[in-house]
């Protein structure tokens, strides 16, 4: 029997389905991907180095917020929480609730962005435009609360920078109600639409066993049935008081990841409604004393999964170490495993369903 011919086909670093530069090299037997290599270093900016040489610890939240436009709030909050654990004083409950509010709004618009791109990859451009249009309701709320649509420097060491007004609470309730009705429509489309089902069911599957083997995180892991979510594995933020519920699927395919994200949007809406309905009284900022002395490790659930900050200081304005572990970076080995055995034609859709963020990855 003749040897099977292997053809090497690259995807990226610039490709129509990619929003940011990443390169995968696929070795294919006919249409089937049999081996994968990746290159993720196109936009490395040396931010870890800058955080320990150029910026004092109290300026770093505004630096790390620039790592990613989509999850800026999670980066600045994760770093800030790590620093706060090494300072004297306590952040108020109201500030913690407002932090969750922004993090969950951020998750809603990030998931909507991912869902719009997965729809676009199935050739469903009308749905792409509809979801992107509806996403504006969330962006408007973020602007009203923080002053910016993205890259908002809302979190500061000791609390948050802006209080919320009665008018904004009214807008939050109105817009979230609108988004909720839209998400119910998306669930129906993603579940029952023939072209989306054909394209995404049983495609790009990560099994539960593979999810354990490759330390999968975020919606990628939960779609495979792996019960992990940092919101239930840390107590820095009072998620247990605002109605957090873990969302799982079992199929592990693109469809499963879509459904997990859609259900997470609904849960995030519920949490935001609970927060504005029962916001604690009090200040939004506490002056914390001292400089970070010791080490701290904090994890938060970003839209793409677990984000981790490790910091070490010696009571000086500059820290010794700021280690940032981002969700997409940690998921690259799992991504590569999912590609193996898939058709090359499905690779762009599979990649979109991972919701990769190269800005975070290369940092």
């Amino acid at each position: 029997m003749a040897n099977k011919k292997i053809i090497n086909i690259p995807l990226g670093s610039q490709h129509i389905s990619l929003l940011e530069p990443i390169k995968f090299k696929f070795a294919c037997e006919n249409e089937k991907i049999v081996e994968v290599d990746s290159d993720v270093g196109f936009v490395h900016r040396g931010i870890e180095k800058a955080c320990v040489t150029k910026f004092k610890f109290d300026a770093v939240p505004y630096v790390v917020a620039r790592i990613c436009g989509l999850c800026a709030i999670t980066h600045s909050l994760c770093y800030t929480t790590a620093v706060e654990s090494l300072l004297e004083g306590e952040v108020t409950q109201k500030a913690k609730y407002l932090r969750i509010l922004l993090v969950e709004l951020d998750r809603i618009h990030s998931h909507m962005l991912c869902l719009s791109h997965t729809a676009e990859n199935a050739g469903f451009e009308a749905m792409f435009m509809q979801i992107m249009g509806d996403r504006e309701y969330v962006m408007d709320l973020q602007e009203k609360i923080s002053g910016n649509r993205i890259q908002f420097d809302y979190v500061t060491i000791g609390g948050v920078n802006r209080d919320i007004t009665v008018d904004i609470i009214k807008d939050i309730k109105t817009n979230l109600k609108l988004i909720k009705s839209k998400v119910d429509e998306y669930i129906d489309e993603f579940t029952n639409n023939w072209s989306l089902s054909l394209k995404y069911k049983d495609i790009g599957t990560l099994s539960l066993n593979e999810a354990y083997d490759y330390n999968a995180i975020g919606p990628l892991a939960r779609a495979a049935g792996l019960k992990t979510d940092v919101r239930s594995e840390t107590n820095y933020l009072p998620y247990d008081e605002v109605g957090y519920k873990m969302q799982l699927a079992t199929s592990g395919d693109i469809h499963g990841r879509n459904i997990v994200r859609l259900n997470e949007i609904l849960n995030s809406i519920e949490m935001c409604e609970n927060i504005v309905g029962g916001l604690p009284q009090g200040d939004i900022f506490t002056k914390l004393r001292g400089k970070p002395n010791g080490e701290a490790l904090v994890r938060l659930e970003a839209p793409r999964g677990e984000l981790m900050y490790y910091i070490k200081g010696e009571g000086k304005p500059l820290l010794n170490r700021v280690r940032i572990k981002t969700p997409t970076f940690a998921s690259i080995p799992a991504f590569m495993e999912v590609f193996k055995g898939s058709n090359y034609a499905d690779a762009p859709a599979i990649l979109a369903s991972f919701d990769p963020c190269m800005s975070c990855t290369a940092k």
Partner: protein
Amino acid sequence: MINRIETSLQTVVEDIKDFYEKEKHHFLTLNGLKLDEETTQIQWIFSKYGEVDDITMFYVDVKEYEMIPSIVEILPSAIISQREIVDMFGLDVEGSSKGLYLDEDSEQMPLGSCGI
């Protein structure tokens, strides 16, 4: 709260093999911490699924000329963190090549002793 466990380059792979149960533990990352010009502390960090802030850290203080063993046989996903350590600190990790973030022929090591 971090449960810190000191280990050595000779025993770290065995120690992690004994500790790690894939359905219980989640590998967070491999971290480097520069202690002085010649020494870097390498940390293998794990959390526990479903437990609140249950973090375990294996650590070894490594000299620049020493080879760090790979844990890819136990944890395939560790390869990317190992390659990051090679690029950022200029250290040698078994089976992990340079070129993840930097050019393969780059002499720079941003977080190492000859940092840019």
